[in-house]
């Protein structure tokens, strides 16, 4: 009587019960992709748009099937976090990218004050960080997982000092800087140190507290010192009042700036700033025309312009891809060795190499001059031995 069909019904009943009792859900497998984090200020006032250009570049690469790593085609997944605002927010964003999103590497942050704590944390977490524009030496000093695309503040300060002393023939310099900002005070220090050691060189250092709006007290002292040049390693929000107040205070010498002058060109149209010279990593006139056109098209598509930060950010992505290709892995630790061993990488901002034991690149510097509201390439300074 227990024929096949009745056995079947019985078994089906048991199976249904078992299914009912043991309904479970296993974890979903993650598809293989190259996950990269981007930490960038996304909220006002200093909102960056480099991520738009970078996302476009990633989309183009993914449409072509991704990048080949270790014999496998991998799609790139770009995870963008807001690094802007406060240190707490930056640290939380870093924690989210690494611990929740499990990125293989982090591009950013862009400011030294953000990059330093983040580099410290990523060193512990053993995830490589490649900042496009944080120039302070503290970012990479003593670390193995921190890299940068831009020039080092010490290199920048030294290059500016030599140029001012040699090419411009100036001897008395003054520096006005934000004492609480790592970039500002750092670059100020490197410049002062280099300039004061050059023959006949003297430097008047004038710090100001973060958040100041009036710099007249410091500027009056600078004028009194008879400085021939005023070095302003500050950010554009502070630069406009500083330049205007300097001229108002009667300073007539040369205005000198760092690469922060290249982040926002709004103040370049001020009449007081014409003739000023600043150093930067990226000059369109010095870039490979084909790559430049391609990058500019990607930027234009998203309504952004190809500034220094966007160019450095694109180079950061290409450096990460080159490193993954070189080691054939996207594992964070392998990726770090890949970055450290890159040499002669040709990017949009020029040739970049890393020397063993340092996250700072050996790279060229461009000197720009503001003329008629626009910046033009004045000189290209080759890397100097440290």
């Amino acid at each position, binding site marked *: 009587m*227990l024929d096949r069909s009745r056995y079947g019904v019985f078994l089906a009943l048991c199976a249904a019960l078992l299914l009912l009792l043991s309904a479970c859900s296993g974890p979903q497998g993650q598809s293989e992709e190259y996950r990269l984090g981007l930490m960038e200020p996304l909220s006002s006032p200093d909102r960056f748009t480099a991520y738009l250009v970078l996302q476009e570049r990633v989309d183009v690469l993914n449409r072509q099937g991704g990048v080949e790593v270790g014999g496998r085609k991998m799609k790139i997944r770009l995870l963008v976090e807001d690094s802007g605002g406060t240190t707490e927010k930056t640290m939380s964003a870093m924690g989210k990218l690494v611990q929740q999103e499990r990125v293989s590497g982090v591009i950013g942050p862009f400011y030294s004050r953000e990059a330093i704590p983040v580099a410290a944390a990523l060193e512990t*977490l053993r995830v490589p960080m490649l900042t496009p524009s944080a120039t302070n030496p503290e970012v990479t000093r003593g670390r193995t997982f921190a890299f940068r695309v831009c020039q080092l503040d010490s290199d920048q300060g030294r290059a500016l000092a030599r140029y001012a002393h040699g090419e411009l023939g100036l001897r008395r310099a003054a520096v006005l800087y934000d004492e609480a900002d790592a970039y500002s005070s750092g670059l100020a220090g490197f410049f002062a140190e280099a300039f004061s050691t050059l023959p006949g060189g003297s430097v008047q250092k004038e710090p100001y507290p973060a958040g100041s709006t009036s710099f007249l007290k410091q500027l009056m002292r600078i004028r009194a010192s008879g400085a021939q040049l005023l070095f302003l390693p500050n950010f554009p929000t502070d630069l406009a009042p500083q330049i205007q107040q300097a001229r108002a205070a009667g300073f007539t010498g040369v205005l000198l700036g760092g690469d922060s002058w290249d982040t926002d060109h709004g103040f370049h149209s001020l009449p007081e700033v014409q003739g000023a010279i600043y150093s930067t990593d990226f000059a369109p006139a010095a870039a490979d025309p084909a790559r430049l056109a391609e990058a500019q098209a990607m930027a234009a598509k998203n309504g952004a312009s190809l500034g220094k930060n966007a160019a450095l950010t694109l180079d950061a992505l290409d450096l990460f891809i080159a490193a993954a290709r070189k080691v054939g892995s996207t594992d964070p630790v392998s990726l770090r060795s890949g970055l450290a061993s890159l040499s002669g990488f040709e990017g949009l901002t020029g040739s970049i190499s890393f020397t063993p034991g340092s996250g700072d690149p050996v790279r060229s510097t461009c000197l720009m001059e503001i003329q008629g509201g626009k910046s033009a390439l004045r000189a290209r300074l080759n890397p100097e031995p440290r």
Partner: protein
Amino acid sequence: MRWSVRKSLVARLVSTYLVLSLVVIVCVGAASWLVSRELLKEAAFARLETSARQKETDLALWVEERLRDLNLMGTLLAKQPGIRAGAQGLPKPGAETMALLHAYKASQQDARELLLLAPTGGRVVASTEPASVGSYRASYNFYLQGRQGPAVQSVYPSPDSLTPVLTVSMPVKDEEGQLLAVIAMHLTLEPIAQIIRSRAGLGDTGETYLVDSSSLLVASGRLDMESAQRKAHSEGVVQVLSGKSGRSLYVSDAGVRVLGVYRWMPAYQMALLAEMSQAEAFAPANRLALTLVFVALVAAVILAAGVYALSRRLARPVLDVTRAAMAVAGGDLTARAPVETTDELGNLARAFNAMTGELSDLYERLELEGRERGAILHGSFDGIAVVGKSGAVDYCNPGMERLFGCTLPDTPSLAVLADRIFTDSEERRSFITTLQDDMTRDNPPERVFAFQHKSGARRWCRLKVSPMHGDRMVLNAQDLTEIKASEERVRHMALHDHLTGLPNRQLFLDRLDQALRRAKRGGVNVAILYIDLDHFKGLNDAYGHAHGDRVLVETSLRLRACVRESDTVARLGGDEFVIILPDLVQVEDALPVAEKVRHQLFDPDSGGGRLFLGASVGVAFSPEHGQDQDTLLARADAAMYEAKRGGGNAVRVAFPFRQGQPAEAD
């Protein structure tokens, strides 16, 4: 196993019962498990939620307490002279300030660092950690907020200690409300996290823990990948970090199935999770279901034994009837089923026995009837056979075999029979078609035909085809040979003279009629010789009738010897004979025959002169002397008398018809 179950009624009953019982047991077990699990789940969630609420309150109280402490300290610091801004706008804290900060840190193990910051620029002017002094906190939220009023900075990974830190801060103001400094305190979360993780009231596996916004387990302390991987991908953490609070069943980071309640606390940017393993929470449900199933299984086994005993009792009469039925099927009609009960099964046995008895009687009657029918068939003089529509012979009784002289194995079909009993192919064909035709008719006529017996003798048969039930036919055949023979004898006696065997007058007239008709059609001539013996009366009288009969017999023999085979010699009566000579080309051909007859009948030397004493012969021709038999016979008779009158032993030809006188012969 399947076969034995199929063959045994008892096994089928017991196995059916067991299967149904198992299904019911499984259903009841599953239902009780599911229902109790659902109830337990609700209860466990309620406990977890209560616990989570309690821990959240603990956390809020802890933070509030630290803020109160900071406020008190700010008030104390504001009264110290060094706090006033110095030359560069920076407060210059004295030894008392440092002592106060250190004393507080020493008293509170959760205070990681106490800081005093300049009102502008964020410079650290005093700290329990000497390394921090001189550095800047301008970009820190706790500093920016702390300048405005009491602030709680939600949890973040501290760049200094690389641990999750919660910072409370507060402005230090003088009596006029002038901002003198900002006091801040980094709180390590470990102590509070340990308190939160205590398992009070959550059983053996229940736990409550804090996770920061980057899914780092707060209590684990160090910021490294190992701790980052913990709790990272449990469903509860994923849900709560997306900003949702709720509860669900999921697998914890340790791979344990848990019931979890999770709450997102936006004020601290932390999540509070309370979890308890499902195994512990649902253990009572498992116990209940297992107990139910065990008790039900025991009950099912006991009941199965009862079903077994009952089904054996029920099955025994059925098995007895089955055995008896199998014996009957095997041919033993004497088999009877024992009647053991008075219920339906007893009735079944009784009915079966009655049926078997009836069957036995019927079988006997049929057997007797069959034997009788067989004897009838066997003893019948007539031939009886059963044939199919196709002509195949199915049965053939001894009468039939006698009739045709062949047995059933020799003649499997009518076609073979036809081959054996007919030599002519036309006859065979006719025989077969006639029988086939008869087979299709309702009441076919009797068929009489001659055939060749196996012995070679020609015999006669009468045959009738009768339909039988089904497609078959009965052939009834009778031997007609004897009847046919006696019929032939009677017919011969009626047409011949019994003494001489010659055709008598009736046959003579018939033959003459036929000869005349033929002559008329064919344009040929017929002659008759009318013969009367001379002196026969005298011989009869002198030597007796026996001698007369001998004379007549001898005469008939001599007459027959004088003529052709086709000629007819007849005796008309007494001593008068007639010869018909048909098919003559010319009448004169008859005269030599007449003369020969006269010559043969005049033989005085034979028989001592007592046999052939001469004869008078009258000859008449057709159509010369008449075209009908009476005329012709009369003219021949007249010519014979003429010869007799002339003294006998002569031949006279009748006169031509118009002269009316007989012609002289010699």
